[in-house]
């Protein structure tokens, strides 16, 4: 297994839970993102401090996916957040 990647929430990021949606705002860049569906669920779990493996397991159960497929979904979401600058490499 290679080294783990550690991500942290961007310090300028604030967010709220709306009906069926998570709204993220980067105060400094004045950008916003709306997360819905699986992305919103993963964001909520991440903010609650769930570990990667637990999220993968819960998502697999929730969506009726294999563990591997669920892992791909989690990885895709994290990658998209990273590309958008919502999360950053953090040590």
């Amino acid at each position, binding site marked *: 297994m290679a080294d783990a990647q550690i991500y942290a929430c961007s310090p300028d990021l604030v967010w*709220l*839970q709306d009906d*069926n949606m998570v709204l993220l705002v980067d105060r400094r860049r004045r950008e916003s993102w709306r997360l819905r569906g699986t992305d919103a*669920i993963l964001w*909520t*779990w991440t*903010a*609650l*401090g*769930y570990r990667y493996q*637990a999220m993968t*397991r*819960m998502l697999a*159960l*929730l969506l009726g996916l294999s563990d591997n497929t669920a892992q791909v979904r989690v990885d895709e979401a994290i990658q998209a957040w990273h590309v958008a600058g919502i999360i950053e490499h953090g040590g």
Partner: protein
Amino acid sequence: MNSNTLSSTGTALGSGQLPRSSDLQSEQNLFAIPVLNHFLLYAPLSGLAALVNGVALLHLRDGIIDGPLSELMEALRANVRPAPRPIQGEFVPHFLGLLPTRDCNLACRYCGFQIAGGHHHASMPLTLARDAVTWYMDQVRQSGSRQAEVHFFGGEAFCAEEVLDFSVPLSRQLALDAGISVKFEVATNGAFSEERCRWAADHLDTVVLSLDGPADVQDLNRPYRGGRGSFQTVTRSATILSAGSADLYLRSCVTAQTADRLPEIADWFCQAFHPAGVCFESLQPTPQSEAAGLQPPDPLPFARGFIKAARLLASHDVEPIYTAADIRALRVSFCPVGQDVAIVSPDGVINACYLLQSEWEAKGLDLRLGRMSNRAACLDEGAVQAARDLNVWNKPHCERCFCKWHCAGGCHVNHQPADPTGAHARLCVQTRIIAVWNILNSLGRADLAEEWLADDEAVNRTEARPSDLLMDVV
């Protein structure tokens, strides 16, 4: 409540024969309650009440009506709703109750759920939560209902927080797929982290938070398992929940020591938080509460304290809650039992009641409805019927009580409506007092309600009667 205020005088009475209804039920649902020098005539099924004097009452009892009494009787007999009946037919869960764990992080001094030192209760497996939620949402969809409800109980539900974190989005997803809406409610002690509290405030519709009162009360009654007070954490939670979108209901357990502090507690709740409602419940004695020296409040001080608190709460647009005396509601069962609620315990057993199995078994009751098996609920039809049979129709002591369609005889497990002498039990007395006060107020007779409530003897005359039926008036 739709109500009429009619005060009849003896001189206004003529004679005439009341067109007696052959419907025995109407006679069994027409009550006369002495209130100082008046009688409160109460017809819960038509939602009407009137104040009459003694002469008028006797005329009404004997069916001798004329003049204003005929108008009164006409009003009382009009728009009579059918008496509520137990559910019949197919079991369609009214809501799904999930018990994520029986574990708890507090050691409330009155709690019968207390965990023996260090014993850990298992959490509900997520696969079981998935199966229960999936089965329930399917039932709702098949029933044609557009509304689902999932309630979380404990122990302390957040001691198995992953069950909520999993069940809530799963329910939402399934509801979305089925085109129905879903609401979530949790009963909690509020002793958890800020982030967890924010989640509850944002993701749930209703949070029922147990908070007994200011620090001296809360820390005495509801300490952590290690003995440390919980006041600071729980009030922080109440503050966060106040700011969130969930409706916050505060539930305070009232002891003999706190009964006279209810207005103070209500005022503090309104000043410090934004509750939608405040529920005051009198302590249900347990071996633990007795060992801790906590006693239930006497009925009259409780009722007086509640009524003062209720006025204060209402002035802040906060709903005062004492469900048993809610005269707007007609019911056959006070609680989920008999109302086709499926409460799934951590081991997959489906019960009608969220109390501990040992509690209801000790009272000779079996409230198991079935169990989750092979991703579906296997329900025992006989058990479902037995739960439905636990209703006020089968509570003989309630038969002649004016409050029977409102309190429905109270908790099937812990409440015995009469003491060994046949007198009303403590809870019945306070419920009857509060209900009379509610009826008088809905008649617009707050003045009379105040005068009556201040008079110990008058209140005693009201509540101590073995029968409230008009036909039993002597």
